[in-house]
């Protein structure tokens, strides 16, 4: 297990290096300058300022310089936010995004699993169709429509929950629900399909033939097997939530990282583009790693390192 983990960490570092390199050169292909008032400055003034940031150097020099700083853990300072270190910029915003993402993932997974199980057990009944309709709506209604609608009804009309802002737990309820819709929809569909498949397999028949109760079979045998594929999609869903929270963050005025990820690109804010990309890819790689480890816990058959010798 330890050897496997170490091996994986080496792969993770190599992946990060490739991502950083690709992003760096792709980013430099973007036309335009990272300066905020590009439209107000003359080309000579831009050259003077670029000099200070080393942007007049040849690309390979800039690249080596960047990697050197990265190895030291220095992501540089933002252009949009004068002199603010990128690590601090990400640090200031990640808290809200992470809390929101975590809550949405937990809520989405629980509700999704329950809906999926109900749909599978009572399949071809009104419950099943109900869950299907919810899932279709969850996937097809854009989250900003749902969020705007919910904000208007619960926030403005009924005044049950705060309209927006980020000042305490009650402020997180609506954005969490809005963000979890996609997760609920995905997980419930997956869970239903997997559970139905497992329920039809031979060993479940055997368990039934031996006289086990229906609930016992589901909890002891069916669920465990059906969960494996579901866990696979939780990883990507988690990343999806983190990067896709931009719209929800805007609508509920949440001080998250989502917008920076997009805005830094349109502003050519080189250091922030690199910083957020590296951060998100590290997160993604880490989640995949955790999912791989979890497989082994749930299903000893696919223990990653080939099991104990």
């Amino acid at each position: 297990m330890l050897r496997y983990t170490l091996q994986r960490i080496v792969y993770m570092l190599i992946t990060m290096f490739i991502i950083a390199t690709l992003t760096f050169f792709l980013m430099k292909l973007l036309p335009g300058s990272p300066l905020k008032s590009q439209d107000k400055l003359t080309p000579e003034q831009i050259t003077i300022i670029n000099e200070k940031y080393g942007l007049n150097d040849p690309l390979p020099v800039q690249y080596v310089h960047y990697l050197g700083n990265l190895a030291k853990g220095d992501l540089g300072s933002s252009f949009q936010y004068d002199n603010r270190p990128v690590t601090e910029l990400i640090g200031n915003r990640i808290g809200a995004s992470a809390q929101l993402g975590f809550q949405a993932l937990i809520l989405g997974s629980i509700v999704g699993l329950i809906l999926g199980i109900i749909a599978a057990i009572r399949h071809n009944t009104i419950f099943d169709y109900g869950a299907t309709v919810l899932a279709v709506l969850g996937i097809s209604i854009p989250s900003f429509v749902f969020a705007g609608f919910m904000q208007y009804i619960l926030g403005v009309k009924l005044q049950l929950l705060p309209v927006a802002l980020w000042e305490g737990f009650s402020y997180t309820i609506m954005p969490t629900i809005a963000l979890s819709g996609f997760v609920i929809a995905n997980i419930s569909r997956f869970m239903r399909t997997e559970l139905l498949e497992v329920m039809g397999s031979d060993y479940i028949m055997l368990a039934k033939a031996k006289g086990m109760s229906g609930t016992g079979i589901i909890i002891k045998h069916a669920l465990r097997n059906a969960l494996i594929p579901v866990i696979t999609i939780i990883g990507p869903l988690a990343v999806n939530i983190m990067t896709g929270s931009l719209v929800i963050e805007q609508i509920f005025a949440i001080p998250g990282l989502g917008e920076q990820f997009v805005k830094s690109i349109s502003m050519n804010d080189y250091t922030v583009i690199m910083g957020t990309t590296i951060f998100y890819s590290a997160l993604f790689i880490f989640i995949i790693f955790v999912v791989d480890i979890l497989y082994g816990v749930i299903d000893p058959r696919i223990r990653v390192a080939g099991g104990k010798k």
Partner: protein
Amino acid sequence: MNKKFSFLLVLVLALSTFLAACSSSSSDKAGSDNKSGSGSGSGKKDQVLNLIATAEIPSMDSTLATDSVSFLVMNNVYEGLYRLGKNNEPVLGMAAEEPKVSADGKTYTFKLRDAKWSNGDPVTANDFVYSWRRAVDPATAAEYAYMLYDVKNAEEINTGKAKPDALGIKAVDDKTLEITLKNNVPYFKSLLSFGTFYPENEKFVKSQGKNYALEANTGVYNGPFTLSDWKHEQSFQLKKNPTYWDKDTVKLNTINFNIVKDTATAVNLFETNKVDRVTLNAEFVDKYKNNKEFGSYPETSVFFLRLNEKNKVLANRDARKAIDMAWDKKSFVDVILNNGSQPANYLVPSDFAKGPDGKDFRETNGDLSKLDVAEAKKLWAKAKKEAGFDKVSLELLNYDDDNSKKISQYLKEQLESNLDGLTITIKPQPFKQKLDLESKGNYDFSFAGWGPDYQDPMTFIDMFVTGGAHNQMGYSNKQYDKLVADAKGPLLSDLNARWKAMLDAEKILMDDAAISPMYQRGTSYLQRDYVKGIVKHPFGGDFGYKWASIEQ
């Protein structure tokens, strides 16, 4: 089973339409409910103003800031030698009295008043010397260093040809400041109210090092308010500054800003009494324009089409004139923008600068072009002969946001239907890429805008001089170049003649149809009745809260 399924689907759909109907029909009621609710708002007696900012503050370092949110906050927490007053005239700030000006108008000697920074340090002449030198020092890489180019040697220092201590500013003693200009520009006093000209407390800046002004408590303030709390990307708060020299004028105790980027969300916060003022976009203007809390004002940014003369059709004056006259600016502003913007047939905005005669620039020069489709068609036919084309396809370069797409579509529809043989292809580009293409001249015509750098028509007028950095469209007219050069040089000592030169220069630009002006941007907003005295400024920080108050 199909039956059950479709029944459920119908049920869900029916339910959702019912809910949707509810929400739209009851919106008026919400407005009236809230009015009674706002009476008991705790904000009223406490002198607390609740506002919205549309973005995180990019910078609180007055030397480095370049954007409207930063300048808005700075205008209320810092103060230069002057500040823009209630009537947008420069009034004394850190300066104790009007300066002594030398006969040639190039040397200003200021006496500073006994003002303090919020940490108790006195504001001294050296604070100005330090911050101005820091701004033009190329090592600082301040993007707005060019704002100081009217000061002697500023440009030389910024381009590395002189040392920062050669700058035309000198602390004669702690309270006396001597400034030497390159040119005796008439707008220098209002320039002194601009952010880049604020003083900075040298000792404090150096003691904070890299952290200076990155947090509320790593900055120091000399304005009517202090930045007291700053939660990045979330909110910030201004508190009345007890060490401000004119603190008796300041009535508000606290101004709370929440950062909200979505207009619908901002309006919902207004509806639920969380904020006292909100800016509207086109969709909400229709809904609220008869509300008594509704208002709008013109801004000083002007938007126009750049007509690139590298294109052989657009190099023809008649073709350019035809394009300018062939599209309806009034309905464009009413239908597409619908936010208080006004159609523009000019370059220099209205309500921006007054001449030596006390008249607004716009009042004297009036409208310099008009909608005339019949005349446009004639000119277009003439241009076809002169430039030798029958059909032409022009590329419209624009930004890629939703609003810009609407603008492009409108122009395409109008111009194609009014000018025979013209096809327009739309090229939407991300913000920086659009600017880059424009500065390289790789476009036929483009949507562009300009906001003032200082309170004088010249900030607009000199954009299109031959070879100028902001020309970007190959326009050249010797007579116009001369008028601009005169107004910037020999005529500085004859303000009436200078004003006339600028008026004439604008006429030439418009007569050449160098650009096709589109609109002067406006802003529509909702504001509670009990909020009084917020002053809207034409340049620098958008608003002054020094004179604002909450009243019964």
